[in-house]
């Protein structure tokens, strides 16, 4: 596949971002309150668009996000919109959102995100991730 991988190390205010085209997995982990959300998420949204356009392999999002500021929420919603669009064209896409089982709030927020999505959207307590 001609889509290059992404690997952006996380910081205190930005999540670790890894996009693996061969595996068809995009993972985001950590807090997200970047100073410039466009700068951070622009390449990610771009990667999703290129990956979806490049073939018909499945795409899975592996999310372990804790705190998101408003522009990060918007970026994540934009990514979900891309998945939704691909899903209506029979593309195999899915989201696995892992949350710390001690923080039910994050689960509730993930459910809000999932509300309008028709593609498979699983919200899982983090202990299951290990098992």
């Amino acid at each position, binding site marked *: 596949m001609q889509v290059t991988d992404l690997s952006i190390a996380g910081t205190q205010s930005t999540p670790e971002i890894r996009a693996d085209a061969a595996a068809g997995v995009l993972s985001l982990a950590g807090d997200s309150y970047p100073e410039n959300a466009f700068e951070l998420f622009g390449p990610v949204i771009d990667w999703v668009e290129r990956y979806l356009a490049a073939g018909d392999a499945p795409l899975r999002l592996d999310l372990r996000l804790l705190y998101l500021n408003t522009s990060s929420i918007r970026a994540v919603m934009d990514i979900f919109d891309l998945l939704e669009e691909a899903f209506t064209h029979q593309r195999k896409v899915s989201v696995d959102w892992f949350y710390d089982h001690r923080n039910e*709030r994050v689960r509730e*927020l993930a459910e809000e995100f999932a509300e309008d999505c028709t593609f498979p959207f699983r919200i899982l307590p983090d202990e299951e991730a290990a098992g």
Partner: protein
Amino acid sequence: MNAAAGELDRKIEALLADPAWLDHPLREALAALWERYLAQLHRLDRIASLSDRFQALVRDRDLTRTEQFEKRLRQVEKMTRISDGYQEMMRELNLQLQQASTHDLLTGLPNRRFLAERLKQEAERSRRSGEPLCVALADVDRFKHVNDSWGHEVGDIALRAVAQAMDRALREGDLCGRWGGEEFLVILPATRLDDAMPAAERILDAVRDVRVEGIPAEHRITISIGVAQWSAQERPEATLARADVALFEAKGNGRDRVMALT
């Protein structure tokens, strides 16, 4: 097209097709007029059709715009809802952190950091107002014996029970917290030593009623208390040091009692 017009059309077509009128001088003119009429009719149809299509296009575009606008609106509403959720989560975490940084995990009472800060504030307030201020240092009697005999878990339960009893015995405005280990500090604002002593006695009484599962009834849980009044010339640490000396005396004099350093 109405019936009369249709009839006229048919009549003219019949006249033009009739060979009897082939050489009539008006025939050529009528034929030309007929052609022009048909062409105009065709143009009118085309204009109407184009106009219809254009209108449909505009209507569709308006619909798309409305749909897009409504979609954006839903997105913004969703974003706001989720953002509010995250902020609420942060606020709760902040409160938890604040509670954790100022309160003792075992007893739920204010911790040493919180007490020291409050004592400083109360001393400052007393310096301005001239009101008296007392502190009472309390220590659970023979607590090591409790831990050694019935285990640390029972010891923890006993500490919690003592903390609750002390806290319930306080007067309005007094503050009790865990100073460390089995030691508690009570801050008694606007209180002279004369009034601090009966307040401390009430705390002793409340602790005498404490019963802990796992500790035999013959072992009575008691505390000893040392009281000292802050004097305007000293730092709060000095008052605490004198309360500590008084506490030591209370222990030396047989425990389960309050002593004051005069």
